[in-house]
Each structure stands twice: as structure tokens, then as C-alpha cells.
């Protein structure tokens, strides 16, 4: 398969993730859509690293995976904290920080 297919698939997955973030209001699902976007970028990184024949892109993908894991841990901690305070789990209701 030519590398083009992988890159186009990754941009399609990124677009689906971006659409999900715009569409959904539950913070958990928004975090899941963020994962979709990060994974799409990972696919592009690995595809380009295969295209160049160089493994450094794969190291980038591993580091992106670490950052995604950190983001999930902090995000889920926030969601649990919101739930403990009996606040609504809806990004439209949680607008206290809005200017």
C-alpha cells in the first residue's frame, strides 16, 4: 500500500475526532475524541517514518502516546472531582470559568 493511503486515513480520523469534540457535550466523550485525534496524528507520524525509512518518527509516536496517557489521567481526575462535587457533567453547564 502506498503511504498516501495511510496519510489520508489519518486525516479522515482526525476530522472525525474534531467533529466529535464540536458535537458532544459529555466531558468523557470529549476526552475520547481527543484520543482519536492524537491517534490519528500518531498514524501520520508512523506512516511518514516508514516513508523516509527512518525510525525516529516511531520514537515521536511513542512520546505522543506518553503525553496522551498523562492527559487522560489528569482529565479523568478532573471528571471524578467534578462528579464528587455533584456538578453536572456537561461542558455547557460548567461555564464558571467563562469570561
Amino acid at each position, binding site marked *: 500500500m502506498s503511504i498516501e493511503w495511510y496519510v489520508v*486515513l489519518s486525516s479522515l480520523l482526525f476530522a472525525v475526532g474534531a467533529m466529535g469534540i464540536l458535537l458532544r457535550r459529555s466531558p468523557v466523550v470529549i476526552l475520547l475524541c481527543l484520543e482519536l485525534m492524537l491517534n490519528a496524528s500518531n498514524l501520520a507520524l508512523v506512516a511518514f517514518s516508514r516513508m523516509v525509512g527512518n525510525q525516529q518518527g516511531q520514537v515521536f509516536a511513542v512520546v505522543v502516546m506518553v503525553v496522551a496517557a498523562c492527559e487522560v489521567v*489528569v482529565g479523568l*481526575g478532573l*471528571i471524578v472531582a467534578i462528579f464528587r462535587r455533584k456538578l453536572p457533567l456537561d461542558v455547557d453547564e460548567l461555564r464558571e470559568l467563562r469570561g
Partner: protein
Amino acid sequence: MEEALFFVAAIGALGGAIGVVAMRNPFYSVLALIVHLFSLAVLFLLLSAAFVAAAQVVVYAGAVMVLYVFVVAYVGGGEESAWDSIPGQRFLAPLLGLAVFIELAIAVLSSSLIALGTDGPEVGAGFGDPAAIGKLLLEKFLLPFEASSILLLLAAVGAIVLAGRRESA
């Protein structure tokens, strides 16, 4: 063979992604993401990135998804309300997603990377295996490696501070 595997994995990845967005219940969204992640691991294997594929399955589909399942079970998979808070949100969001895809597709198609249309150069059997990636991580990318370990530690401490039980609250 490779083409068939690519299309099966691509359909799995895309279907999983659409499932994450379309499912009303967050629990089903998490399950759809697991399908997506496994299909993505197959794609990584096709791109001869064995270590990244293994890390994908172990770290993502194994550890991160278990965390998600626990939090969704704790918070409760409440369905979201059906009304649009921004008028026409249900209609505008797919339109903007499509715009993002068209923009990215134009960027790919108009790029002058000639190698984009090829399968990539021939690589040996050791390309992307744990030994090669580990050597790169511990020699050339030692500083990012250590920085990511500090980041993981900070995230773990932050999660405990955020979600820890408070006596007064």
C-alpha cells in the same frame, strides 16, 4: 494480502472512530474506541512499526481503556440531553469536520513529497522492533525520554491531588 489487511483495519479504525462520536451512551463509546485502537495497531504493524503496535495494545487498549471503563462506571453512563445549546450545532459540527478533512486532503495531495505515492524504501527485518526503538530512546532521545518520565510522575501526582478524597468537602 497487504491490501486486504489494510482495508479491513482501515474500516475498523474508521468505524470505531465514528462509533465513538455517534454512540449516545459513553460506555459504548469506550468500547468503540477499543475497536479503533486495535485496528490502529494492525495498521502500525503493516507500517513495520512492531514496537509502536505493541505499545498501542498494551498501554492504550490495556491500561488507558481500563481507566476509562472504571471512570465511566463510577460516574455513570448518563445520556446527554438532546437539545442543541448552540443553534444548529448538530448540523454545523459535521460541516466543520468535513472542512478540516478537505483542508488536510488538499495539504496531502498538493504536497511535493514524491515518496508519498510509493510504498517507502525497503527496510530490514529489524526496522521498528523493540531493540531498535530502545536504542534510539536511550541514546539519541535520552533527554525527551527522561522528560516524559518526569511528565508521567507529575500527571500521577496531579491526578491524586485532583481526585483524592477530601475530608472537609
